[in-house]
């Protein structure tokens, strides 16, 4: 387990969590997202209006895409837009179109998402970051199975988000073209993982 770790991330800042396999990057991000209760210590969010629940104002993008094969690409995004932020149909449709356009998926908007390639599905999953705006983005290896073009798009998106005062915490090995990312280095665990731990 990770121990003796303390850090602060400020608005407009990108925190890149790096470290070897099994260092606990995923564990850290899932703890911040609230999936795992820390054994000791706490995660807190200081806002202008007192402390807020961190899970309720973050986007979590993990290894899985959260894309439904039997909904079209647009329907998938429209659902997440409505699920996160609500709003009427037209506003949602507009946001969905923006997001699809940003990731070059507009032509495929009406195709069942199950037909998309792995990379396209992954991009569709990332487009969720656009359809609903949340200040904190928690990204776990967001560039996995993305090609160079998509990685660039993502980096641009992250920069925009930071410029708008957002906060990004990402586990990744690429610098993502950021100007001055803050690195958080996690060490390798000394013991090998117990055989029961499934990756």
């Amino acid at each position, binding site marked *: 387990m990770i121990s003796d770790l303390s850090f602060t991330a400020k608005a407009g800042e990108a925190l890149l969590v790096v470290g070897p396999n099994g260092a606990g990057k995923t564990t850290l991000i899932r703890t911040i997202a609230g999936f795992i*209760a820390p054994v000791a210590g706490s995660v807190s969010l200081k806002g202008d209006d007192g402390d807020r629940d961190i899970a309720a104002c973050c986007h979590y993008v993990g290894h899985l*895409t*959260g*894309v439904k094969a*039997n909904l079209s690409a647009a329907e998938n995004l429209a659902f997440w837009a409505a*699920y996160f932020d*609500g709003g*009427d149909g037209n506003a949602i449709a507009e946001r969905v179109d923006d997001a699809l356009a940003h990731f070059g998926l507009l032509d495929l908007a009406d195709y069942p998402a199950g037909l998309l390639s792995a990379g396209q599905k992954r991009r569709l999953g990332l487009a969720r970051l656009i359809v609903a705006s949340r200040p904190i983005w928690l990204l776990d290896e967001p560039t996995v199975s993305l090609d160079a073009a998509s990685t660039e798009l993502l980096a641009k998106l992250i920069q925009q988000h930071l410029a708008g005062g957002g906060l990004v915490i990402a586990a990744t090995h690429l610098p993502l073209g950021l100007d001055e990312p803050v690195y958080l280095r996690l060490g390798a665990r000394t013991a090998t993982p117990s055989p029961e731990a499934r990756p």
Partner: protein
Amino acid sequence: MSAFLALLKRDLTLAVREGAALGTALGFYLVVVAMLPLGLGPDLKLLSRIAPGILWIALLLAALLSLPRLFEADQEDGSLEVMATAPLALELAVVAKALAHWISTGIPLALAAPVLGLMLNLDIALTPALVATMLAGTPAISFLGSIGAALTLKARRGGLLIALLVLPLYIPTLIFGISALGFAGLGQDGFTASFLILLAISVASVAAAPVAAAAALRLQMS
């Protein structure tokens, strides 16, 4: 559109597009109901006497066996984790999903019951009472079932284990559902009382089950 409605709509859309799930449940219902007379012999009096019980139990089993997929699909593709970080409380998400299950499985099964009743020589005059009690009782099946589905999300042997966990919870619904039909069959006025109890059970499970199911889901995300 509110988050709750969005989820409900999505699950219903998926249920329609993946129509095979409902088809399989209806087919199973039909097969199980058809097997009982085979097993009991073609005594029509006997059949019509035990028909309500058989229709109820087969409906329980059919609904039950369609439950393992309730959260599984969302877990496999990662939607469940994303939902857990959204503003809508996970409890309400469970309500939306169980409600969608009720609409897409419970209601069709309840509506199919009178047709199957014909095969069991069930008194046709009982049809309204049959459908009414089943519509009143099936929400409890979907919502109580959501607890089982959540608890067994990561277990192997999903089907059998869910059944074992949840069937005992269904017993009150079963008893009052059948007794309501018994009163209706005899023309006695206990029907209303049983029917109201059935409704109360459903309301109670709609209120209580999502809390338990959401807790089970959260535990399995860490």
